[in-house]
C-alpha cells in the first residue's frame, strides 16, 4: 500500500527526513509520533504527493511519488482521504459545500452527493453546522469538517495529520472511534498525533520519529515484502 525506501527529504534550509524506510500494508493502522518538527507532516506530505522525495523511493497505492505525472496526481489523491494539520478548508464555501466539493471532483453522480455529505457530517457531529462557513466555525468544528471531507469518498488510505489537536476529550473519542470503524472496513490509516493517551489506549502499530529518522517501530514485519504483491 505505502512503501518508503531509504527516503531523504531536504528543504532549502535543512534536512527533514533522513533515510526513512517504512512499509504500511493494506488496511493497517499506524500512528506516527515524535517531537514537534520531527518530520511527521513531511512523511504525510510525501504520501499525498504535496512533496517529492529528494532521494529514495516513495510508492503509494501503486504510484511512484518521485516521478508522478501531472495526470496521475489527481488520480492518486482521489484514492486518499487527507486531514491536513491546518485544515485547508475553502473559506467561501459552507461546511457542506467543502465536503461536497471533494465528491464532485471525483465525478460522483450529482444526486448521490447531498445524502452522502450529510451522513458524514452527522458522523463527525456537525450536521447542525452544515451551512456555516469555516470562519463561522470554532477550531474543533473546522477540524471535524476537514475529517468529514477526508472520509466522504471512502478512501483506501486515510492520511490524518493531528486530527484531534483542536478537539476536546469527548470529541476526540468520537472522531477516533469513527477512524477505527473506517479502518475496520479495510481502509489503511496513517495518523500523526501528539496525543500519547490515544496511542497508549490501543495496540496499533506506532512509528516514532526523531530528527527526521525512525527511532522506534512497533510493527514486527518492517521491511518484509510479503503483503506487497496484494496491492
Amino acid at each position, binding site marked *: 500500500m505505502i512503501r518508503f525506501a531509504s527516503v531523504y527529504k531536504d528543504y532549502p534550509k535543512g534536512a527533514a527526513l533522513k533515510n526513512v524506510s517504512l512499509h504500511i500494508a493494506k488496511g493497517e493502522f499506524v500512528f506516527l509520533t515524535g517531537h514537534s518538527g520531527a518530520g511527521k507532516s513531511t512523511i504525510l506530505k510525501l504520501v*499525498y504527493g*504535496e512533496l517529492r522525495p529528494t532521494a529514495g523511493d516513495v510508492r503509494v497505492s501503486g504510484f511512484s511519488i518521485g516521478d508522478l505525472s*501531472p*495526470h496521475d*496526481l*489527481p*488520480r*492518486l*489523491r*482521489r484514492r*486518499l482521504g*487527507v486531514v*491536513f494539520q491546518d485544515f*485547508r*478548508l*475553502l473559506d*467561501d*464555501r459552507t461546511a457542506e459545500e467543502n465536503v461536497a*466539493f*471533494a465528491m*464532485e*471532483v*471525483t465525478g460522483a453522480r*450529482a444526486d448521490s452527493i447531498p445524502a452522502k455529505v450529510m451522513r458524514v457530517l452527522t458522523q463527525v457531529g456537525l450536521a447542525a453546522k452544515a451551512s456555516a462557513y469555516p470562519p463561522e466555525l470554532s477550531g474543533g468544528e473546522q477540524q471535524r469538517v476537514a475529517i468529514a*471531507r477526508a472520509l466522504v469518498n471512502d478512501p483506501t488510505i486515510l492520511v490524518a495529520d493531528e486530527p484531534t489537536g483542536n478537539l476536546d476529550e469527548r470529541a476526540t473519542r468520537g472522531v477516533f472511534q469513527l477512524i477505527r470503524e473506517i479502518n475496520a472496513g479495510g481502509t489503511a490509516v496513517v495518523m500523526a498525533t501528539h496525543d500519547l493517551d490515544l496511542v497508549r489506549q490501543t495496540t496499533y502499530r506506532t512509528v516514532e520519529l526523531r530528527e527526521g529518522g525512525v527511532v522506534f517501530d512497533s510493527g514486527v514485519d518492517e521491511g518484509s515484502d510479503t503483503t506487497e504483491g496484494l496491492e
Partner: protein
Amino acid sequence: MSLLVREALLAFRRAPLLSGLSITTIGFSLYAVGLFALVAVNLREALREVEQRVEVVAYLLRGTPPEAVAQASQDIAAFPEVARVAFISEDEALRRARQELVEFRDAYRDLKVNPLPASLEIQLKDGYRDGAHTAAVAERLRGYGFVDDVRYGREWIEKLDRLRNIAGVVGLTIGLAFAAVAVVIIGVTIRITVLQRAREISIMRLVGATNGFIRGPFLVEGMLKGLFGGLLAIALCYGTYLLFRGQAELATSGIVFLRSPQLGLGVVFGVLIGLGGSLVSVGRHLRNV
C-alpha cells in the same frame, strides 16, 4: 457542464467585490479602446467631408459645339471613377468670378468681351479621390480635342493622400497600442484574481481535482467577465457619444457612433481577452503549484 457554469457563477457570488472590480477594469480598458475608436472614426468622417471637395476641371477651347460637349459629358459620366459631371458655361464662369474674387471686381467691370473659358467640373466617386486615380482621369480628359487644359489641384490631392496615409498608419498603430494596453491591463487583472485564489486552487488540487476541472470554471468566469466588461465599455462609449452629439451638432455636421459590427467585434475581443487571460494565468499557476 452545468457544474462548470454553476461554479463560475458561484465565483461571482462568492467574491462580488473582486469580480465587480475586475469587470470594471476590463470595462474601462475597453472603454479607452472604444474612445479612441470613436475619435478615429469621426476623424475619418471629417476627412471624408474634405475629400468630397476633390474635383477635376477641364477647360474647354473657345467655340466648342454644345453637342460635342453634351456627348463628352455623357461619356465622362460613365467613367468608373466619376460621380458627377457639371458643365459651366463662359457666362456662368464670369458670374462666379465677379462674385467670388474681389481682386477682379474692378478688372472685369470694364471688360468688353468675356475672357473666361467654359469648363466641365468633374466629381469623383468615393475611393477614387487619391492622386493616382485623379491623374488618370485628368489624362483621359486631355485626350478630348476640345479640352484646352485640365486642372485638379495636384498638390492639394497629394497632401490629402499623405494625410490619409498618415491617418491610417497613426490610427492603426495607436489603435493597436490601445488594444495592447487593454490586453495588458486585463491580463494583469485576471492574473491578480488568480493569485488571490492561489490558496483555493491549491486546496482543490489537494482534494484531487484535475487541472481541467479547476480550469473550467475559471475560463467560463473569465469569459463572462470579458463579456460584461465589453458591454460596460459599449455603454460608456455610448454615454460619451450622447454627451457629445448635442454639442457637436451645433458646430459641425454631427458625429457618428460605432457601427454594430464594430461593437460586436469589441465584445468578442473582450470575451477572448477574458478567456485568454484566464487560460494563461490559471495555466501558469497550475504548473507552479
